[in-house]
């Protein structure tokens, strides 16, 4: 049965055949098999084999890409999007428009050469947020990508309102720029773990490639003949330079010309040098925000801000409001979305005691074990290391305690925790879908409790660790609604 106005299926551009073949998109899965077969039968070690392999894989890849392209079509109807695909078994996925949570248009470098984009449609359906929730339409012209995005997100207001079957693009709404990445902020990049990992991964990959190369193609570096200390110093210096430069370059490539603008009911983030990404978030679905900062970032006064959005797949990346910047900018930006409920309440002294004890325990255990094993096995370093760790545990515990805090305001509430990475999360009252209070034996004796606000956004739960047990029920009620009064203990 097909409704009268059923939309026709559209195809992606044939250029994707070339793109997928060049990037070995489908053939990548074959490479391990080829390697295994090759290892089993013994590959001739010569350029001819390599060329033959490359040609074979390219052909297979082209064939595969052609089949997938031929069998793929998408259609955006008045109430739903339908994607049809599959080589042998036909798969037809229908996603109602009111389930679509976000549309991302990205333009990887090769796509840009031929004027194509990739459209990711985020369709969350309750519990499981994963890759399967995503529809990907890979390889449509730029204009078609923009039309699709505008069309899929144009639906506003009540479901069932007469859609626009022609898929006409609504007139562009006025934009308001919220942030723009400042190149000076790149100086924070070496302080962020994620960006430091970029050069490390690069160096690792380089060594792997060197390892794989046949002996005779490896560059002959010879034996370096420098004295030990100089070599070490040079090596450390070089490593530091590579790390710093790599992290700055990595950060610049990912966040190149980052802009966050407000357009009608959506926030639009655009960024990236090689792959240009265009992410759209519905403001209606924003339930809160989190400003987080690692240890190094806090020392430099830097932070990052992300929006906590319901039903957003890959939330850590897509929810980003400010990937990296001065703390003040992050806070000002975040507070425009959801009110900051103000100064945090500190947690009771029992929380400080628990935090310090917990931080010292590993050191104390090592110290005790060392006291027993030291004389037996001659491990004198063990008690010494234990003592140092136990002493260091005191400032660590105090710092972790200092990070704790919570408060409830008229429309939102806040919790903060973490030392290595400190996260300050602010959520709307309506965001809470449940409360969980957890109390261990030690917490019960200390009159403490960990209160977890369950929300359908971000990580799924945000905890006020070790708050006074007597305050828990009052906080829960103030931070959500009258239904939480069920928790209140009898007077």
């Amino acid at each position: 049965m097909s409704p009268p106005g059923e939309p026709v299926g559209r195809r992606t551009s044939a250029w994707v055949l070339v793109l997928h073949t060049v990037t070995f998109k489908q053939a990548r899965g074959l490479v391990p098999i080829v390697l295994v077969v090759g290892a089993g039968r013994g590959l001739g070690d010569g350029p001819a084999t390599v060329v033959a392999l490359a040609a074979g894989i390219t052909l297979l890849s082209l064939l595969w890409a052609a089949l997938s392209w031929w069998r793929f079509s998408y259609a955006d109807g008045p109430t739903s999007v339908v994607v049809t695909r599959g080589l042998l078994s036909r798969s037809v996925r229908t996603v109602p428009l009111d389930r679509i949570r976000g549309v991302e248009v990205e333009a990887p470098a090769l796509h840009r050469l031929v004027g194509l984009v990739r459209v990711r449609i985020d369709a969350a359906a309750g519990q499981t947020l994963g890759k399967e929730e995503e529809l990907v339409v890979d390889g449509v012209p730029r204009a078609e990508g923009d039309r699709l995005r505008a069309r899929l997100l144009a639906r506003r207001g009540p479901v069932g309102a007469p859609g626009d079957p022609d898929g006409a693009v609504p007139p562009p709404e006025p934009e308001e720029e919220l942030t723009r990445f400042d190149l000076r902020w790149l100086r924070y990049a070496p302080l962020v773990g994620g960006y430091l990992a970029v050069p490390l991964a690069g160096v690792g990959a380089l060594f792997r490639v060197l390892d794989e190369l046949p002996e005779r193609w490896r560059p002959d570096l010879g034996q370096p003949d420098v004295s030990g200390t100089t070599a070490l110093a040079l090596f450390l210096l070089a490593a530091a330079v590579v790390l710093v430069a790599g992290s700055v370059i990595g950060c610049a490539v990912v966040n190149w010309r980052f802009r966050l603008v407000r357009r009608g009911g959506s926030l639009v983030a655009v960024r990236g040098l090689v792959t240009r990404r265009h992410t759209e978030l519905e403001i209606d679905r924003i339930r809160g925000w989190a400003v987080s900062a690692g240890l190094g970032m806090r020392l430099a006064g830097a932070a990052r801000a992300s929006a906590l959005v319901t039903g957003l797949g890959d939330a850590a990346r897509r929810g980003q409001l400010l990937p990296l910047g001065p703390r003040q900018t992050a806070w000002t930006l975040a507070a425009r979305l959801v009110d900051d409920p103000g100064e945090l309440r500190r947690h009771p002294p029992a929380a400080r005691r628990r935090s310090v004890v917990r931080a010292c325990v590993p050191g104390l255990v090592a110290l005790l074990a060392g006291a027993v094993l030291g004389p037996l096995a001659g491990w004198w370093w063990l008690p010494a290391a234990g003592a140092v760790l136990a002493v260091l545990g005191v400032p660590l515990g105090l710092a972790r305690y200092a990070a704790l805090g919570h408060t409830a305001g008229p429309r939102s509430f806040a919790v903060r925790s973490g030392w290595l990475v400190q996260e300050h999360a602010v959520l709307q009252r309506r965001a809470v879908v449940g409360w969980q209070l957890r109390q261990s034996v030690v917490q019960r004796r200390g009159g403490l409790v960990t209160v977890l606000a369950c929300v359908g956004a971000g990580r799924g739960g945000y905890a006020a660790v070790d708050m006074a047990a007597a305050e828990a029920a009052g906080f829960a009620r103030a931070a959500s609604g009258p239904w939480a009064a069920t928790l209140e203990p009898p007077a």
Partner: protein
Amino acid sequence: MQAGAGRALPGWAVMNPPPPAPAREPAWSLSREAIGLWTAQGVLGTVVYGLLVTAFWVFVPADAGWPVTLVRWAGPALVVVYGVVAIGFRPRLRYRVHRWEVTADAVYTLTGWLARTWTLVPVSRIQTVDVTRGVVQQVFGLASVAVLTASSQGTVRIPHLEADVARRVAEDLARRAELVRDEAT
């Protein structure tokens, strides 16, 4: 601290008053059959660990150094301790701690035995309600109810209710969630 105001406390409690719980106790306890089920689980666990330790005694040569000797003697001791706790204490303690309640606008549970967890989910935010009956549960005529929300961490599990109670609770919650459902996220 206004602990014990208006209530007579036993002598030891006045000396060392128990800290007040952070939240009210839900009204209802689980089916008494739950004790039997937890005991059965304790027995099963003890048997499995016992078999592992026996296998260690049989298959690992005794003269392989002091770590092996340590495991040979500590293993059985740990199994005995585990058996006593898991069969003798834990089922009763769990039964005393576990409570549940369905109020006019929320589902509320208290679970745990040493550490405790109170979970509260309003009916308006319920997304799905599941009833599960495990193999051991079927022997005891029990079933568990799981109430799921949009948050991966906001799931209420009511373990080990009588099977028909579980079914009725699930039906009632699902129907009410349908009626008051707002955006649910």
